[in-house]
């Protein structure tokens, strides 16, 4: 592994119903840093501790949901190799020109079996985290504005053929399976959590009747204390909370699920364990899926499986 190939989630492009309201929410409640707007009307954000120009992009549209989710790869040679490997695997790709997204290099874009658009790119302008690379401070004012997550961490997507996704992410992109939930039959996966790093997950999928759906985009916080602080900020701002603060059995992160003003689910979470390539995957059986998803409630809420955008 040693962090080559696909490095990490790079950006999520999310559709919103009312741009101005969403800009206000992502800036002042989430505490993301706005880094630009383009001529298509897309608005760019990063988390305060991220160094690249953007990790979260919103665009106004008639419906909510996710437009694309992208991963940064280590080198331009990696980008070329993944492009040809994807085609050889039977997955058509297209190129999106450098600069289409602000300060972002050329992207390789492809559709995965669940119908979602995934992008790879090697270059994005480094704008820094507001602190020097020489003798830096521990944090800066932006770390306390709003919820202020440190990074965009992962996403959970819903669609039909999650087995096809797992095969593609493992065989072509070098991801590994970390955890899974089995359906009643004991063999079919209801859900899978995949990593390309030592994180417990970089992307996850749940089997669902409809393709191309977003369950949540997740943002990382430093501590359980900050998860509670995030919940307070949500209540102060009357943010729609789905569930939490609580803990996931799966990946062991402490979490809140909540919704942006267009109904896109977001997560702020902290913790979870670290994974190495010699770790055996964890399996959750159908009977205990409730405890797997929500460790304290120990039951699924209706919204977890049916409310998506």
């Amino acid at each position: 592994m040693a962090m080559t190939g696909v490095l990490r989630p790079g950006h999520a492009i999310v559709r919103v119903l009312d741009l101005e309201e969403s800009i206000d929410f992502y800036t002042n409640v989430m505490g993301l840093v706005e880094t630009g707007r383009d001529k298509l009307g897309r608005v760019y954000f990063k988390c305060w501790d991220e160094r690249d120009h953007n990790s979260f992009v919103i665009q106004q549209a008639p419906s909510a949901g996710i437009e694309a989710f992208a991963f940064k790869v280590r080198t331009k040679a990696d980008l070329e190799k993944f492009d040809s490997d994807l085609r050889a695997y039977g997955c058509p790709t297209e190129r999106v020109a450098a600069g289409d997204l602000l300060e972002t290099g050329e992207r390789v874009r492809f559709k995965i079996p669940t119908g979602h658009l995934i992008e790879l790119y090697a270059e994005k302008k480094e704008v820094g985290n507001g602190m020097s690379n020489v003798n830096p401070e521990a944090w800066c004012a932006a770390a306390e504005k709003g919820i202020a997550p440190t990074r965009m961490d992962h996403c959970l997507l819903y669609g039909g053929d999650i087995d096809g996704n797992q095969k593609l992410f493992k065989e072509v992109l070098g991801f590994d399976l970390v955890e899974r939930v089995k359906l009643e039959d004991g063999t079919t996966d209801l859900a899978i959590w995949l990593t390309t790093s030592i994180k417990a997950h970089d992307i996850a999928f749940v089997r669902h009747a409809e393709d191309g759906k977003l369950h949540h985009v997740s943002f990382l916080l430093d501590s359980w204390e900050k998860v509670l602080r995030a919940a307070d900020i949500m209540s102060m701002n009357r943010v729609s909370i789905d569930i939490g603060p609580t803990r996931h059995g799966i990946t062991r992160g402490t979490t809140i699920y909540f919704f942006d003003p267009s109904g896109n689910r977001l997560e702020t979470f902290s913790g979870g364990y670290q994974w190495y390539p010699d770790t055996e995957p964890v399996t959750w059986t159908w009977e205990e899926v409730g405890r797997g998803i929500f460790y304290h409630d120990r039951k699924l809420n209706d919204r977890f499986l049916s409310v998506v955008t």
Partner: protein
Amino acid sequence: MVYHVITIEDTGETYKCDERISVLEGMENLGKKGIPVGCRGGGCGVCKIEIVSGNYKKRVMSRDHVSEEEEAKGMVLACRVKPLGEMTVRVLGKMKKNVCKVAEQPVEV
């Protein structure tokens, strides 16, 4: 504060809703039930209702769940509608239990 009485026709449930909040939030705030609650942001579609009578103010809602024609006929998302007077509504949305459907799907290898 101005409140309006909302009646959910399907169950006969009634509640008073502050005109500054949505018909869905008004129901939830009082622990009432009847309209399914999802994202509360006009994105997921589970709170879809039909306005049987009454005046209301609405905000932009997802076209995946409410077409222009439907919206013109008073089919809306309850989380995007605030009452301007007494209202009667009928529930159209459902909390789909997709996982049950999935469990019945044949397993592909």
